[in-house]
């Protein structure tokens, strides 16, 4: 009998030990290799699409979508299957996120070309040149006040000797991996399901900024993944009942890093943490302690306040201007005082194809239709976690964010809001679709769910980026990356080499970005100095008012791109949003307006590269008493 008892006790110990041993260590990769093959095929097709886009053929867009389908279709199908390892699902999510990053790289494989990238390139150059922060950046005055991205890039450069472009690729690539990893782990921690986490990754990748903006060398592209890391760390810290130094340290240092990296992400994080803390405190029956969230919220508020008040004071004005302008315009639209912005308007002969427009609207309708069901599913749980309650509140903001799309001033806010709101939509939507709790109102067919997810994904791509942004192609006027070409780049390099840095000049939006970053010049606009220099170019003559403006702005050079007289701008304006008739250009700039500088006394035409001409107006400005 004693022997039996001892044997039972030994079996019990072994059972206990086995139950608390980590997994045996054999990882199943499932169909990851096959998905990699499909993804590789998709990327190859998209590369061909990019090549066709450069040749401006009709094959470009169909090939692009075929490539996307190859990448996203099999991955989504596989993630919907019920019985697979968490490791496999995480691997699929990572492959999807990285593949979509490579899609962006293939559009511009040789240099940074997205508009925001030039802004941050200038801040990085200033840090590398001076070794210090907060040098003035004429392209975006607020950028130097949030130098986290550029400081991190500079650290990587000092440690590796690599140039800015490869560093940008590596840094944003790592940020993309962190985004997908942390997103997956957040959702799997909250729901306890790798299947839900995998589907949530697909839904999150459908946000309008995922492909075009979150992969740019821009401060938000680093701050956003850090915010996801902070959320994950807080969930784990709370899950360990506040007894986890690792997660506490990551959360608190991550909050500090975000505070010095991006203003909007900081403010959204403060609001998120504050709401989470309030919900956690109010819900007394929550089994997890609230104090880690409260500590994090207080720390976030303090860190952001210290940085904003001491260094980043411009951020409050900047954000206030953007948000209030959008909200004011929305109110005007709702009351009938202003007409709503027309969506998918053709510009410069570039029109979104009808199938894309249909898919975009379908995607939005699907999400709006699913929204009440996913929220109901989440709160029907006997004791939904406080974080889930916060996600439900965030999801409720989605319809309002869509409304901003019908305003000119609020479109950008709507776009950026999707990066945060889709965390909620992804978590709640995926849980509703494939979560373990029963639901009477739920899609059952895997084919139908796949189709809906693919429509939502495609719709996000379409809403976030018009075709001319997704694919490279011939030059177009004021078309962001489509306007970046060798003549403009060579001109910017020439200006730096021959005229030196920091000259005050007037240039259109494309050349201003090139001159302000590669050329290290000081383009003067109403956005950075409250001087409407665009009027100088739009005027048919240079009279006393224009001369006074040139003197006040201390302009030395005017850079004229004669291609502005060929077509109206693809995006809203040639120079800046404050220019005459911004957002309503239907005809090109008059050639006479651009040529008027040729006949002005005291003006020297010092550079000509065919399309781009530079005038030295020192003689003209100095002639005025």
């Amino acid at each position: 009998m004693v022997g039996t008892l001892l044997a039972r006790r030994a079996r019990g110990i072994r059972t206990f030990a086995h139950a608390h041993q980590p997994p045996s260590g054999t990882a199943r990769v499932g169909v990851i290799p096959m998905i990699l093959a499909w993804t590789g095929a998709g990327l190859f097709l998209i590369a061909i699409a990019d090549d066709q886009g450069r040749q401006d053929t009709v094959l470009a867009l169909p090939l692009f979508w075929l490539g996307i389908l190859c990448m996203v279709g099999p991955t989504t199908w596989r993630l919907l299957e019920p019985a697979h390892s968490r490791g496999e699902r995480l691997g699929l999510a990572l492959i999807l996120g990285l593949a979509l990053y490579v899609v962006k790289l293939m559009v511009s494989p040789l240099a940074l070309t997205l508009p925001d990238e030039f802004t941050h390139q200038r801040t990085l150059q200033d840090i590398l040149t001076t070794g210090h922060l907060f040098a003035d950046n004429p392209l975006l005055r607020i950028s130097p006040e949030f130098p986290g991205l550029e400081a991190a890039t500079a650290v990587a450069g000092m440690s590796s000797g690599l140039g800015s472009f490869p560093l940008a690729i590596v840094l944003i690539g790592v940020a993309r991996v962190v985004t997908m990893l942390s997103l997956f782990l957040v959702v799997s921690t909250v729901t306890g399901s790798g299947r839900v986490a995998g589907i949530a990754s697909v839904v999150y990748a459908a946000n309008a900024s995922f492909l075009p903006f979150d992969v740019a060398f821009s401060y938000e592209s680093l701050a956003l993944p850090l915010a996801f890391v902070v959320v994950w760390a807080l969930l784990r810290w709370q899950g360990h009942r506040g007894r986890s130094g690792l997660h506490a340290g990551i959360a608190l240092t991550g909050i500090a890093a975000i505070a010095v990296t991006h203003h909007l992400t900081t403010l959204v994080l403060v609001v998120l943490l504050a709401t989470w803390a309030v919900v956690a405190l109010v819900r007394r029956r929550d089994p997890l302690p609230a104090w880690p969230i409260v500590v994090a919220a207080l720390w976030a508020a303090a860190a952001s306040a210290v940085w904003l008040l001491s260094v980043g004071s411009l951020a409050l004005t900047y954000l206030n201007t953007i948000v209030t302008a959008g909200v004011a315009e929305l109110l005007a639209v709702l009351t009938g005082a202003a007409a709503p912005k027309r969506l998918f308007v053709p510009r410069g002969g570039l029109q979104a194809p009808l199938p894309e427009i249909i898919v975009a609207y379908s995607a939005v309708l699907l999400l709006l239709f699913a929204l009440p069901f996913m929220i109901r599913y989440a709160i029907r749980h006997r004791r939904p976690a406080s974080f889930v309650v916060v996600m439900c509140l965030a999801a409720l903001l989605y319809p309002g964010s869509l409304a901003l799309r019908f305003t000119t001033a609020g479109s950008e806010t709507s776009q950026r809001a999707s990066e945060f709101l889709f965390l909620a939509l992804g978590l709640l939507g995926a849980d509703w679709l494939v979560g373990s709790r029963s639901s009477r109102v739920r899609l059952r067919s895997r084919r139908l769910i796949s189709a809906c997810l693919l429509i939502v994904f495609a719709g996000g791509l379409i809403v976030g980026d018009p075709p001319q942004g997704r694919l490279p192609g011939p030059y177009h006027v004021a078309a962001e990356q489509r306007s970046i070409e060798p003549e403009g780049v060579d001109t910017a390099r020439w200006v730096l080499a021959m005229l030196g840095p920091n000259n005050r000049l007037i240039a259109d939006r494309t050349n201003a970005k090139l001159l302000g970053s590669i050329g290290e010049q000081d383009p003067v606009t109403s956005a950075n100095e409250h001087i409407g220099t665009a009027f100088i170019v739009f005027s048919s003559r240079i009279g006393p008012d224009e001369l006074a403006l040139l003197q006040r702005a201390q302009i030395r050079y005017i850079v004229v791109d004669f291609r502005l007289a060929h077509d109206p701008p693809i995006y809203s304006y040639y120079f800046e949003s404050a220019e005459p008739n911004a957002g309503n250009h239907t005809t090109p700039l008059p050639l006479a307006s651009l040529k008027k500088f040729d006949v002005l006394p005291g003006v020297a035409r010092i550079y000509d590269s065919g399309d781009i001409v530079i005038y030295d107006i020192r003689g003209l400005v100095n002639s005025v008493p």
Partner: protein
Amino acid sequence: MSAVLLVVAGVGFGGQLVAGGPVLGPLGLVLLGIPGFVISQTVRPVPLSWAEVTLVTLGTTLIGMVLVGVVAALTPRGLDAFSVAAAELVTVALAAACLVRSSPSGARRAPVRIHVRPGSILAVGIGLALAGAGYLVAMRSAQVQQDQASVVQFWAVASATGEPQLGLRNATGTGLECSIAVSRPKLPEIDLAVGSVDNGASWTGSLPLRDATDTTRWQISLSCAGADGLAVQRRVFVDPVAAS
């Protein structure tokens, strides 16, 4: 392994401190991740899953780079290889302190063995090959587009010594035969010899000084001819410098 990695990181950043620049080239990026990895292995709760180890390593690396960069830039010396290395050595020291203070938890994560079939390896190879080929196609396409751009720059600015200077740069992909004509109202035209300018090459020449009696603006025209009927015209206007 953590101790070995910390030693490597210490040596690497120490070398950067002494040399005043990176010593391991691109591998220096790996050094930046070592403190985060060690922290993931030593700070409780351990062991973490491989996914969490990866996230902790990469996340703390990014966080560390941001904070190190900002702190280094705020020092009087500023952000340079020395200050970055010094700050990173502090993170290495912190990680080392975590390693020293950590005690074995008893539960170890078993080494992950990934079990794949030969067909899976083939599929991975195909996928990576297709993706790599696609990226090469994209790069080649972008390079061709860049090379096909035909840029001829022509300018008239003061040289470093203050003398008026003409210049041109040929980036058309082919050699050019160029000539320059200086038109002066009421005065004879001046022809300046340029000759052949190879692709990628530049030419500079001096602008003649004007007579004291000549107060007009000069128009300087560049004409170039290249292969396949390529014709290039450029113009600049200057108020030339008077002869002393």
